[in-house]
């Protein structure tokens, strides 16, 4: 029996019970859509974090106070927020950064502390994250300037009240006005603005757009904190990163009595974070796949009902010369139609949903999840369709014809 005829018969019988076919396919639609949606959230999150990390600059080594176990680190921005929250117990000092910078393989290093403070200009006020850092920060992050420039070593050393604004902060406070030379109030103190960074995009911990940068010495004074919460050090070349980590550890161990710090290289963090996120994506996809399984069972159920309902028809078709193979194929085609139709609709719903979701959070539809969903839905049709189809093909024509 030509495939064209089989498809025509399948469509006809599915049309006969439109709402039933639709509801059956809905099981697969939901399954496929949720696989695609959840996988897109997982891989979107991974892309986002990877990008953010790479945005920080290349060949970086990070020194954080306190002992951090990478394996116990949470998902997402855990690395950074973990580091900053341990600031209170931090024993790293500015001089430690100077020593790290003396290591020959280190091209430059920057120290950072972080605090939150309201920032005010004329009537405008907003809450901003203030980062106290050293002049090298700008070389490591490789950020360009919209206007003005970053502060220099002499300004750090003298602890001047100067500030560099992230793009968004400047836009929010000044709008079209030129902020260079203007004074903003950061907490109780007035700072002179000497630069506005160019727009970097993104948001959260890694993006400079909504931050305010001040010399670290100034920040230490204002926020009454002698410690630093992060040292970023840039290694000369990528090959030397892993060999430099122990050198940094050695230098710091000599200065601090106990090993109360953690040295991480960027690649290590990146690979740990991405492996965590890969696992998360897989777990999310796996959970969603269960609903696909349930959808498959729905197809099997309805096909079994259909075989029983159409016993008489099967008997007639057999009497007229349909071989068991033809009957088997006919019912299998019908089941696959349900599951593949549901699969395609699910891909559309899932991708559309992911696209909508990507407006609010990182979500990327991956080609592999779409392909996988399609193949799995076709497989579901075959796997769950084969039992009802076999049952139909094995019906005795006499019994089937007699069935009312």
């Amino acid at each position, binding site marked *: 029996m030509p495939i064209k005829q089989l498809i025509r018969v399948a469509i*006809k019988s599915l049309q*006969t019970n439109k709402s039933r076919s639709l509801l059956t396919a809905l099981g697969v639609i939901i399954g496929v859509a949720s696989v695609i949606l959840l996988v897109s959230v997982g891989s979107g999150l991974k892309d986002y974090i990877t990008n953010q990390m790479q945005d920080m600059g290349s060949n970086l080594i990070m020194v954080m106070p306190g002992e951090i176990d990478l394996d116990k680190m949470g998902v997402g921005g855990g690395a950074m927020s973990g580091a900053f929250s341990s600031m209170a117990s931090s024993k790293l000092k500015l001089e430690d950064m100077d020593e790290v910078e003396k290591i020959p393989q280190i091209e430059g290093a920057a120290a950072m502390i972080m605090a939150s403070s309201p920032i005010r200009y004329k009537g405008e006020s907003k809450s901003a994250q203030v980062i106290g850092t050293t002049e090298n920060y700008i070389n490591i992050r490789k950020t360009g300037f919209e206007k003005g420039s970053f502060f220099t070593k002499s300004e750090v050393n003298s602890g001047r009240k100067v500030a560099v604004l992230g793009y968004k902060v400047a836009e929010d406070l000044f709008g079209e006005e030129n902020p260079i030379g203007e004074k903003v109030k950061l907490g109780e103190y007035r700072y002179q603005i000497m630069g506005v960074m160019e727009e970097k995009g993104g948001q959260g911990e890694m993006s400079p757009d909504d931050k305010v940068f001040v010399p670290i010495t100034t920040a230490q004074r204002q926020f009454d904190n002698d410690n630093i919460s992060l040292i970023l050090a840039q290694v000369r070349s990528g090959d030397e990163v892993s060999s430099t980590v122990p050198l940094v550890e050695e230098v710091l161990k000599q200065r601090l009595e106990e090993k109360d710090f953690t040295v991480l290289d960027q690649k290590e963090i990146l690979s740990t974070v991405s492996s965590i996120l890969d696992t998360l994506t897989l777990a999310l996809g796996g959970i969603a796949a269960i609903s696909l399984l349930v959808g498959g069972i729905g197809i099997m159920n309805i096909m079994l009902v259909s075989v029983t309902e159409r016993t008489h028809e099967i008997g007639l078709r057999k009497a007229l*010369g*349909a*071989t*068991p193979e033809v009957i088997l194929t006919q019912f299998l085609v019908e089941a696959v139609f349900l599951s593949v139709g549901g699969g395609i609709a699910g891909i559309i719903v899932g991708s559309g949903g992911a696209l909508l979701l990507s407006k609010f959070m990182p979500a990327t539809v991956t080609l592999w999840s779409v392909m996988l969903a399609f193949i799995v839905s076709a497989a579901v049709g075959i796997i769950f369709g084969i039992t009802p189809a076999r049952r139909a093909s094995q019906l005795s024509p006499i019994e089937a014809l007699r069935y009312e």
Partner: protein
Amino acid sequence: MTKKNAILSLENICKIYQMDGISIKALNGVSLTIEEGEFVSVTGSSGSGKSTLMHIIGCLDVPTSGKVTLEHHEVSKLTERELAQIRNKKIGFVFQQFNLLARTSALENVSLPLVYNGTAESNIQGKAKEALEKVDLGDRLHHHPNQLSGGQQQRVAIARALVTDPAIILADEPTGNLDSKSGVEIIEIFKKLHEQGRTIVMVTHDQNIASQAQRIIKLRDGKIVS
């Protein structure tokens, strides 16, 4: 005993059913020859074995013992698949319940056997139309069964039986679900087909209908009594 133009011969056919451990002998040594162009009716009361005999003649079932030869093919030992192909090519069924596919046009119903034997798609419509014209339904090609009267439905079924040009037309109580007027019409069609040289086997319990045939075979308790 096989004659030279015999189309179907049954030799000493036995059919035993197993039911709850009890064997029931539905057919007990039936021998029968049907020649080309014959119009035969098979009668008997219920339980006489006429249904079983019809199933075996129609290649819907195989006998427990004995030999069935249909146009030089020994069919008693064929597989399910081969039986399906024989049914398609050699037998044209007409059922009491018409057994047309609902929500399917007369033309498509008649096309069904052609679809199963791999007739080229371009020929199917023409052949089906021709068969429907033979039973005077040339103007009802696209009607669905629920738009046709009982007699018309049975004529569609006859067209479906004719469309593959089978060796035997096998009718099982073809008038059983019809009023007497339509029943007479259907019998007239069978008579006409017989005149055109078709071989027809009609199973019925109705003596009046049976007597319309050229030869009457009477069954009782799984045996031919006359």
